[in-house]
C-alpha cells in the first residue's frame, strides 16, 4: 500500500459542515498534511486558517480562436461540439467561450486551420504553509461558470506522501464529482433533517457509482429526526462521528475559530477516524486487489 491517502469531505446539502470538518481533520492529522479547498466558487477554509499566501498560480483553459480569413465555413467545428459552444456561419465561426469545455475537438477537425487555441484564465490557486499544513485554495474568477478544470488543477497538489484533505463543493453535479474523483475515501457530512437525508441519498448514489469507500459524519446530531440513522442502518453505512448541536460551536464558528480548538476532545475522535479510514482503505484493497 502506498504511503499517501486522500480523503474528500463532501455532502449533498450545503451548509452541513464540510469546511468545519475538513479544516479540523487537517489540523488533527499528525503527519504531513495538505488541505485543498476545492469549493472554488466560494472557498472559505481560509477564514479559519488566516493563511499568508506565498504563491499564486494562474489556472487557464484552452479556448478556440478563429481566423475568419482561413475559414471555409465547412461546419465541422459546429458539428463536433457537444456543448453547442461554436457555430459555423458564412462569415466565419462564432465562439461562445463560457460554454466551451476545452476538448479541442473543433481545432482538430478544422481542415483549413482557421482555429487555434488560446489560454484563458479561469481562476487562481493560492498556497500557503499554515504551521505544518500545506494549504491550497482554488478561487474561480468572477463571471466564470465552469469549475471542474480549476478543481482538477487544485487536486494536482495532492501530497504524494502523507494525508490530503479535500474540501469539496456541495451538490452532486460535475464540480463535486471532479473533487471526489480519485480520492481514497469520502466523508459525507449531513444533518438529521429531511433536506439532509434527501441530499445524502443523492451523494451516496454518486459515491457508489465512483466505487469510492465512504462513511457519514452526522452534524448537529441531536436536532431533527432519526431518519438519517434509519437510512444509514438499512444501507449499512457507518456513521463515524456525531457532533451534537451546540451554541458554543456556532459562536466560535462565527468568530472564525476551528472545531478542534473549540472542542478539544474532537481531536482524539478525528485521529481515531483516520485510523478507521486507513484500515478501511487497506481492507478494501485486499478485497478487490
Amino acid at each position, binding site marked *: 500500500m502506498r504511503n499517501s491517502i486522500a480523503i474528500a469531505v463532501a455532502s449533498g446539502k450545503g451548509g452541513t459542515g464540510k469546511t468545519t470538518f475538513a479544516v479540523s481533520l487537517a489540523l488533527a492529522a499528525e503527519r504531513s498534511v495538505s488541505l485543498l479547498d476545492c469549493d472554488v466558487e466560494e472557498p472559505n477554509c481560509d477564514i479559519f486558517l488566516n493563511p499568508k499566501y506565498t504563491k499564486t498560480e494562474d489556472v487557464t483553459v484552452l479556448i478556440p480562436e478563429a481566423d475568419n480569413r482561413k475559414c471555409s465555413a465547412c461546419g465541422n467545428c459546429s458539428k463536433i461540439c457537444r456543448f*453547442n459552444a461554436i457555430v459555423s456561419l458564412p462569415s466565419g465561426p462564432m465562439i461562445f467561450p463560457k460554454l466551451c469545455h476545452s476538448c479541442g475537438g473543433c481545432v482538430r477537425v478544422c481542415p483549413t486551420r482557421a482555429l487555434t487555441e488560446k489560454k484563458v484564465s479561469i481562476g487562481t490557486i493560492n498556497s500557503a504553509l499554515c504551521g505544518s499544513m500545506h494549504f491550497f485554495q482554488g478561487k474561480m474568477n468572477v463571471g466564470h461558470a465552469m469549475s471542474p478544470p480549476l478543481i482538477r488543477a487544485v487536486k494536482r497538489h495532492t501530497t504524494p506522501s502523507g494525508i490530503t484533505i479535500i474540501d469539496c463543493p456541495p451538490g452532486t453535479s460535475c464540480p463535486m464529482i471532479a473533487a471526489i474523483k480519485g480520492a481514497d475515501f469520502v466523508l459525507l457530512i449531513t444533518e438529521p433533517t429531511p433536506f439532509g437525508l434527501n441530499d445524502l441519498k443523492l451523494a451516496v448514489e454518486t459515491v457508489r457509482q465512483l466505487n469510492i469507500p465512504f462513511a457519514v459524519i452526522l452534524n448537529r446530531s441531536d436536532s431533527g429526526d432519526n431518519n438519517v440513522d434509519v437510512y444509514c442502518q438499512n444501507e449499512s453505512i457507518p456513521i463515524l462521528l456525531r457532533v451534537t448541536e451546540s451554541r458554543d460551536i456556532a459562536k466560535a464558528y462565527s468568530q472564525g475559530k476551528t472545531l478542534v480548538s473549540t472542542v478539544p476532545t474532537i481531536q482524539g475522535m478525528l485521529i481515531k477516524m483516520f485510523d478507521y479510514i486507513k484500515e478501511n482503505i487497506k481492507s478494501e484493497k485486499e478485497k478487490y486487489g
Partner: protein
Amino acid sequence: MKIAVTSERTDLNSPIDTRFGRAKYFLVYDTEKNTYSAIDNKQNLNAEQGAGIQSAQNIINCGVDCIITGHCGPKAFGVLNKANVKVYLINGGTVKEALDAFKNGQLKAIEQSDVVEGHWA
C-alpha cells in the same frame, strides 16, 4: 423567401411554441412555393446548454430569411443577427396566424434579444 416559425406540432394549425431554442418544432414555410416542412427540434429540447445557439445554427443551415417566435435569448439572437436572419416576435396564436400577421406587415423585426442573459447574470 423562407420563414421559420417555432411550433408545438407539425402542421399550420398548431399553436406556436413561444420558446426559440427549446421549441418542439420549426415549421419552415416557403412563400414562393407555398409549401412547408417541419423540423423536429428534439436534439435541442434536451440539450444541457446552448440550445438557442444550436437551434439558430440549424435554422441558418436551412437557409431561412427570418424566424417568428415568442422570445429569443441573447446568444441565439447574436447568431441569427450575424447570419442576417431577422427575428419577429408574437405572443401566441397558431402558426398560420403568425404567418398571416407577418404577410400583413403586422410584425416588426426586433433589434435585440428580449430575454436577459443566463441565471447568473
